[in-house]
Structures are given as C-alpha cells and as structure tokens.
C-alpha cells in the first residue's frame, strides 16, 4: 500500500501525457485553400504527398514541425506513423524522384508565418498558438 502515492502520481503524469498527445493541436491553412473541413483520409494523403489537391481543386502542400509533442501527436494520430517512419517515407520519395521533402519548421510561429504566405500550405500547430493570417480547418 505504501506505493499507492507513487502510483497515483505516475497515473496522473500518464494521464497528462496522454492528454497532451491526444488532440492538442489545430490544423491551419493558407487562405487560398478553399475547404474549411477535411477528412482524416484526405489529411493523411496530403501529408503523405499522394494528394496534391483537395476536392475543390485547390493545390495543397504540407508543412510540418521538425519535432516536439505536437508533431509526435499529429503524426501518430493522423498519419499512423512514428516520426522516424515518416522521415524514412519522405526520404524514399526524395531519392527516387517521386516527391520533394516537405517544408519542416522549428516552431509554431514559423509554421503560422510560412502557411500565411505560401499558397496551398497546410500545417499544424499547438492549439494555443495565435494563428493570425491563416484559416483554421476542421478535421471530420
């Protein structure tokens, strides 16, 4: 019984960690992107570069964070891959000529700034990030 407090703290930490990794991000896009919602499958296809336009015909290109909890959570939840598996996938495209390496940026602010100025850009940032100059897209 004397281990109970430790277990409680561990459980609380795990719960906090799960909460952070579950859905603490939002999807943002350049104003040229017509859609205001996107399906999970479409989102996965956009970030795996098998889809370069949405249903309304607007061109899209993915923008990623280089690392961090938001990045890990997004990649796991919507792309079903680990970061290393995703990097392997992208490099496979690059070195066989089947795609370019998508833009990767270090901070939420850099992602917002890049998406705001780049036609068709779609990225993700942590949910508390100020997202001026970009539109927010819902995933349905």
């Amino acid at each position, binding site marked *: 019984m004397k281990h109970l407090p430790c277990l409680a703290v561990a459980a609380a930490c795990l719960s906090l960690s799960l909460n952070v990794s579950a859905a603490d991000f939002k999807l943002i896009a350049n104003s040229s992107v017509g859609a205001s919602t996107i399906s999970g*499958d479409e989102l996965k*296809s956009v970030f795996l570069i*098998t*889809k*370069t*336009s949405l249903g309304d015909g607007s*061109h899209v290109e993915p923008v990623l964070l280089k690392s961090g909890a938001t990045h890990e959570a997004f990649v796991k939840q919507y792309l*079903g*891959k*680990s970061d*290393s*598996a995703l*990097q*392997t996938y992208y*490099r*496979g495209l*690059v*070195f*066989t*000529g*089947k795609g*370019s*390496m998508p833009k990767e940026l270090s901070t939420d602010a850099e992602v917002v700034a890049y998406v705001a100025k780049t036609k*068709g850009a779609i990225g993700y940032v942590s949910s508390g990030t100020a997202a001026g100059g970009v539109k927010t897209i819902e995933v349905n």
Partner: protein
Amino acid sequence: MIFGIKNAVFLAALYVAPAALNAQVDFKLFDRTFQVHGFASQGFAYSGQNNYLTMKTSTGSFAMTDGGVTVSSQLTDKFRVGAQIYDRNVGELGKWRPQLDWAYGDYKFKDWFGVRAGKVKTALGLFNDTQDMEFLHTWAVLPQAVYPVDLRANVIAHTGADMYGTVSLHKLGALNYTAYVGTRTNDPRGGYYLATADAGLAIKEFSGIVGGWDARWNTPIEGLMIGGSWLNQTENINGTIAPYGNAPIQISDDFEQTTAVYADYMRGKWHFNGEFRRNKNVLDISLLGARSQADAGDKGWFVSAAYHVTKKLEMGVYNSRYYVNVPTTPIPAGDHIFDQAVTARYDITRFWNVKVEGHFIDGYGDLYSAHGFYLGSNPQGLKPTTNMLVIRTGFNF
C-alpha cells in the same frame, strides 16, 4: 585488408558532411527553388570462408562504398523535374564510375493520374527503387535472394515513360499503381558481366526493352500494405566466347518475366515484411552456327522482422532464400543460397546511422548466377558455407 585513398577521402567527407549538411540545401534558379539532397555509406565486411560480393572479405574489406546526389524542383503545382547521380565501389562492382541513376520530368494531371518520362527508377517489389539507400532500411545488406547487389543494374531503371497514380478505395484504403515501358539498363561494371566473364563470355553489346506494372494496396488495416509487380524484358547480347576460340556468340530471349508479391506491416515498434520473386528466363543461344536453349530462371524470397528497442536502436532478423532453376553443375551447394541475417541499427542522429550485421550463408548458388559468389574472386574454389560480419555507416541530408 586494403584501405585505399579514395575510401579515406570518402570517409573523411562522410564524417565532415553530416555536421556541415545536417539538412537539405536549397538554391534558387529562375525564381524556382531547387532542393539538393545526398547520401553516402561506407561498409566493412569480413567473412570466414568465401569472398563475397567481389570483395576480398576473407581478409576483411573496406571496398564497400556508395553515394548519390539528387537535385529536384517543383516547377509548377503539377510539374516537377529532378535527377540523381549515383556512384559505388563494392569490390569489383561499380568501380567508382558515376552513373545517371534517374532523371525525369513528372507531370501530375490528377492525384490518380500522372506521367513521368526520362530515365525512371523501376517500381518492382518492396525495395527495387530504394535498394541503394541503406538509410531507408534496417539492414546493412538487403536480402540478396531478391535484391542482389550484383544485379541491381538489370532492373534498377528504364529509359522511357511511366504512368502512375493513387486511387482512393474509400473505406478499403488506397491503391498506388505504376505502369511503364522503355529500354532496359545495364552496367558493364555489374555482376552480370563478371559472371559471364567467369564463363569465358565477353559481352560486346547488350540491349533490350522493358515493360511492366506495380500495384500496392494500402489496406484499411493500419500499417499493412500488400503489393504485386510484373515485369517483362527482352535481352539481346553479342559477344565472344573464349573456350571456343573467341568465336562470336549471340544470346537473346523472347521474354524474361519477373513476378513479385510482397507485404509490409508496421505496428508500434514492430516492422515485418516479406517478398517472393520468380524470374522466368529461357535464353536462345547461337554459337558456331548451332542454336540451343538454356533455362536461366530462378526464384527467391525473404521474410524479416525488426523491433525498435529504443528510439535510436533497432534490431532485426531476416531469412533470405534463393533457388536456381537449373544449376550448371550438380553440386549440393550450387543450386541455392540461404542467408540468415541478424542486425542492430543505431541512429546516431536523424541523418547518420551505423549498423552491425551478421550473415550465416549456406550454399553459393550457380557458378554463373551473379549472386555474390564468383569463381574470379574465389580462385581457390568455393566452400559450401560463408559466415560474414558487416559494419556499415551512412548519412544523408
């Protein structure tokens, strides 16, 4: 054990470059952004018995070096161009002669239909188009039953056109397809030429055409992909053959068909994959006015499992099995190569890895099958088993 100057220079570059180039290099030309990427690897192989892959592995060999540089640009939303130079020196293979690996224009009309034209990497099986990029794989040496280092040039690329696309199957996943036609590639510094030289055949001309398709289904089961490929090639060879007083010889075939089925499954820290491949190849041989036929077909398969012990450390095993249809000589070790490998891969950084791998090989295949074992590099004769240690490090940017 010889460690040449070229290897030393290459290794120096290998260890300096990751620090200097730990990300892609971009430059602008005519208001368009071009991405530059590159990769390189250096290996060391030591075997207890036979020399393997034309290296002097029985005394330890560093002659296992390769690298490439890629330049590409998305010129418009739908049109991209790019090219890659690849160079290798693996024993007698490659001999440091740079080659144009691929170079093409790619116009994507729709997500479900695009066209590539130029020299294009051939979509065949799990790894044909990525077999040179060790950093994409767990293994230091890919399963040689299906991806022989010696014969990469035979199917690595074609000069022609592809059509490709991704078709959504909605709740059933997605289907990626590629169909292609063109002329086949060959490499005078590849295993095919070495094996035929062992038989006394000096190839003067080599040509052929190629066509085929590849389809891979990303199933609704997360992480599971299943695929199939089919390739048809023709082959026209003119040469001379030493055992017949350097008489002219012509070799051709009506078809050389390769069929592959494969699957890849990734779940959590586990990664499994496997592939079966069969080559049907009947050669027509014309020598000194007489005509004959020879079955040059073979088949092979592998299964593998890998596990991420930590974020940076991955360990894996594979079982690779290669079978010759009709061996030249009826020796038990001469109709198969069974290779069981165990690997540890450590990612020092995101761009730099090192691998340590053990191989336990039974058999050496046909004397002329160009699957790692050559009479020319084993003049003392081939032994039935080979154990080998491979250490390989590579980086990319």
